[in-house]
C-alpha cells in the first residue's frame, strides 16, 4: 500500500459481484473476521522479531491490543471504535478475480508461481480488478480523508503505488502463504509519507478473496525513533573509535618520547663534556654510547608498535619454537634487564617444530615477556621468567611463567578483553591481540595464576607435520 494522489477522484464504489457495498456493515463483519483472523497474526507477530528489526516490541503491542479486544469480544463483536482506539487501519478489499485465477490454476494442478512468472501481463490486468470495498474510521485518521467514499473504489486508482507491491502479494498467495506481512509507505492526502506495517491473513477460498481484510499500522514514529537511535549509535561508535585512537596515540607517543628524551639529553650532555675547557672524553664517550642505545630502544618501540598494530598477512611456516622465542626476547632485552628479570627458555625433549607466522609469534612472545616484566616490578628479587615448550598432543604448548604478584581470580579471564587494562597508563589491547594472533594459528591462549606466587600464560600452536 502506498501513495494515494488520486484519492479525490475515487470512482463510484462497486463490488466485484456488481452490488453496491454498504460501508459499515462490511466493517462490522470484518471486525468479527478480524477477531478470528488476527489470532494467528497476533501470535505470529509476537513470535517473530527477526523479519522486522525491533518488530517484537511493536508486535507485542499489537498482539496485546488484539488479545484485549478478543477477550472483550467473546460476547460481542469487536466494533469499529475498538479498532480505531487500537490505531489499526482496516481495509476490506475484493480480490475475487485474483482468487479465481489462483484457485483455478490450483484446481488444475498447475504451478501457480510458474504461471505468473510466464505471464507477467497478468499482474497489471489483475491489479486493475482489485477493489477497496470498505475501510474503518481509523483509516480516515490515518489517510486524512474526510469520508470513506474517498477511499473506496478500484485499488489501482485509489492507491496507484500498490502496483509496486502487488507482485509480492500475488507471490505470497501463489505460494499458499497463510499470512502476508510487509513494511510499506503510504502517502496521506496531505502528501506526507507514513511508514506502515501491512498484514493480512491470506484467503483459502473464493469468498475469502472477495473479503480480504488488510490491516495497516502506522509505524512512522517507531521507524523515526529507530533512525534516530541508529544515528546516535553511529555517533557513539565514532566517538569511541576516536577516543581509542587518542588513547593509543598517547600511549605510542609516551613510548617513543622516553627514548627520544634520553637521546636528546645524552647528546646534549656529550656536547657539554666535549666543550669543556678540558674535554672529558670518557664522559662524552659514555653519553654518545648511551645515545646509540637509546636510539636503538626507540627503534624497538617503533618495531613493536608496528607489529602490534599492523594487520600483516598470516603466513605460517615450519619453525623451531625456541629459536623464535629467543629472537623475540632480543627485542625486549633492554626492558627485561631494566626490570632485573632473568629469562630462561627451555624446550622439553621431543618438542616438535611448529607451524607459525614468525612475526606474529614474536608479537605474542614480546607482549607476554613485557607483561611478565611489568608484573614483577614490585616483586623481590630474583625476578625470573621461565618459558617452557613441550609437546601437547598434536600441538606444542608454551608456558610463560613469572614470579610476580599474580593475577586476581576475577581478572584472570577479563585481562584478554580488548581495552581492559590493569595498568594506569595501559590501553589494554596487548593480550587481546595476542589471543587473536594465537587463535589465528588455530591455537589457544589462557592464563593461570596463584595470587602472590606469579602468573603463567599458556599458548598452543599446531605442531608441524612430522
Amino acid at each position, binding site marked *: 500500500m502506498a501513495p494515494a494522489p488520486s484519492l479525490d477522484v475515487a470512482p463510484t464504489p462497486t463490488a466485484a459481484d456488481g452490488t453496491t457495498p454498504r460501508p459499515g456493515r462490511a466493517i462490522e463483519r470484518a471486525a468479527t473476521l478480524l477477531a478470528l483472523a488476527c489470532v494467528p497474526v497476533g501470535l505470529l507477530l509476537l513470535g517473530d522479531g527477526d523479519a522486522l528489526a525491533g518488530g517484537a516490541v511493536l508486535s507485542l503491542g499489537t498482539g496485546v491490543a488484539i488479545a484485549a479486544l478478543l477477550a472483550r469480544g467473546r460476547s460481542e463483536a469487536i466494533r469499529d471504535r475498538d479498532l480505531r482506539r487500537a490505531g489499526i487501519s482496516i481495509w476490506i478489499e475484493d480480490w475475487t478475480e485474483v482468487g479465481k485465477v489462483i484457485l483455478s490454476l490450483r484446481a488444475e494442478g498447475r504451478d501457480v508461481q510458474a504461471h505468473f512468472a510466464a505471464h507477467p501481463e497478468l499482474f497489471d490486468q489483475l491489479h486493475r480488478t482489485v477493489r477497496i470495498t470498505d475501510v474503518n474510521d481509523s483509516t480516515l485518521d490515518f489517510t486524512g480523508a474526510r469520508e470513506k467514499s474517498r477511499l473506496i473504489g478500484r485499488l489501482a486508482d485509489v492507491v496507484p503505488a500498490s502496483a509496486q507491491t502487488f507482485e509480492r502479494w500475488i507471490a505470497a498467495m501463489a505460494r499458499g502463504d497463510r499470512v502476508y506481512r510487509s513494511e510499506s509507505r503510504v502517502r496521506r492526502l496531505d502528501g506526507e509519507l507514513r511508514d506502515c506495517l501491512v498484514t493480512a491473513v491470506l484467503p483459502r477460498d473464493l469468498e475469502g478473496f472477495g473479503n480480504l481484510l488488510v490491516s495497516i499500522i502506522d509505524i512512522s514514529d517507531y521507524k523515526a525513533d529507530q533512525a534516530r537511535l541508529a544515528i546516535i549509535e553511529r555517533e557513539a561508535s565514532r566517538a569511541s573509535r576516536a577516543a581509542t585512537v587518542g588513547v593509543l596515540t598517547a600511549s605510542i607517543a609516551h613510548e617513543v618520547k622516553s627514548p627520544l628524551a634520553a637521546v636528546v639529553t*645524552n647528546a646534549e650532555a656529550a656536547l657539554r663534556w666535549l666543550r669543556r675547557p678540558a674535554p672529558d672524553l670518557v664522559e662524552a664517550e659514555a653519553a654518545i654510547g648511551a645515545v646509540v642505545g637509546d636510539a636503538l630502544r626507540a627503534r624497538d618501540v617503533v618495531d613493536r608498535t608496528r607489529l602490534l598494530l599492523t594487520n600483516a598477512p598470516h603466513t605460517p611456516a615450519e619453525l623451531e619454537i625456541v629459536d623464535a622465542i629467543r629472537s623475540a626476547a632480543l627485542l625486549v632485552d633492554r626492558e627485561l634487564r631494566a626490570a632485573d628479570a632473568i629469562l630462561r627458555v627451555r624446550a622439553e625433549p621431543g618438542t616438535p617444530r611448529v607451524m607459525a607466522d614468525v612475526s606474529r609469534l614474536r608479537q605474542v612472545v614480546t607482549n607476554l615477556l613485557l607483561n611478565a616484566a611489568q608484573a614483577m616490578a614490585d616483586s623481590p628479587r630474583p625476578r625470573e621468567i621461565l618459558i617452557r615448550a613441550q609437546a601437547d598432543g598434536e600441538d606444542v604448548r608454551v608456558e610463560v611463567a613469572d614470579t610476580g604478584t599474580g593475577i586476581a581470580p576475577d581478572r584472570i579471564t577479563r585481562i584478554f578483553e580488548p581495552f581492559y587494562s590493569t595498568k594506569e597508563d595501559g590501553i589494554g589491547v596487548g593480550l587481546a591481540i595476542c589471543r587473536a594472533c594465537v587463535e589465528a594459528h588455530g591455537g589457544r591462549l589462557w592464563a593461570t595464576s596463584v595470587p602472590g606466587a606469579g602468573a603463567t600464560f599458556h599458548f598452543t600452536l599446531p605442531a608441524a607435520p612430522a
Partner: protein
Amino acid sequence: MCSSSVIAIVDDDEAIRAALSSLLRSLGYEVRLFASAESFLADSRASPDCLVTDIQMPGMNGLQLQLAIRNRRPRLPVIVITAFPEDAVREQAIAAGALHFLSKPFEADAIARCLSEAVGGAR
C-alpha cells in the same frame, strides 16, 4: 650556581636517569638518582638542593611526591619533567608548588636555566 649543589633525580626510566645524570654532572651539579618516589622518600640522607621528578611512575607518582615532600621540605625547589605535558597536569604540578614544568624531550639549556633559577647562580 654552587658547585656543591645536589640535584635529586626521580624517574622510573633508567635511560632518562642516566642521561639526566650525565647532563647535570656536565653542568657541574652533584646528582643523586632514585628509581621511584618511595625510594627517594625512604632515603633519609637525601637532602638535595633541588628535586627533578617525573610525573608518571609506578606506585607514588610525581604529583604525590610533591605533596609528600612539601611537608618535609616546603622550600625545596621542584622541577617536574613529563612525557605527558597536558595543561591539567601542568596546573596540578604548579599548584603543588613546582617551580618549573618541562616536557620530555627538553633542551639542555632549558633545564640548565631552571636549575640555575632553582639553586641560584649559573655557570
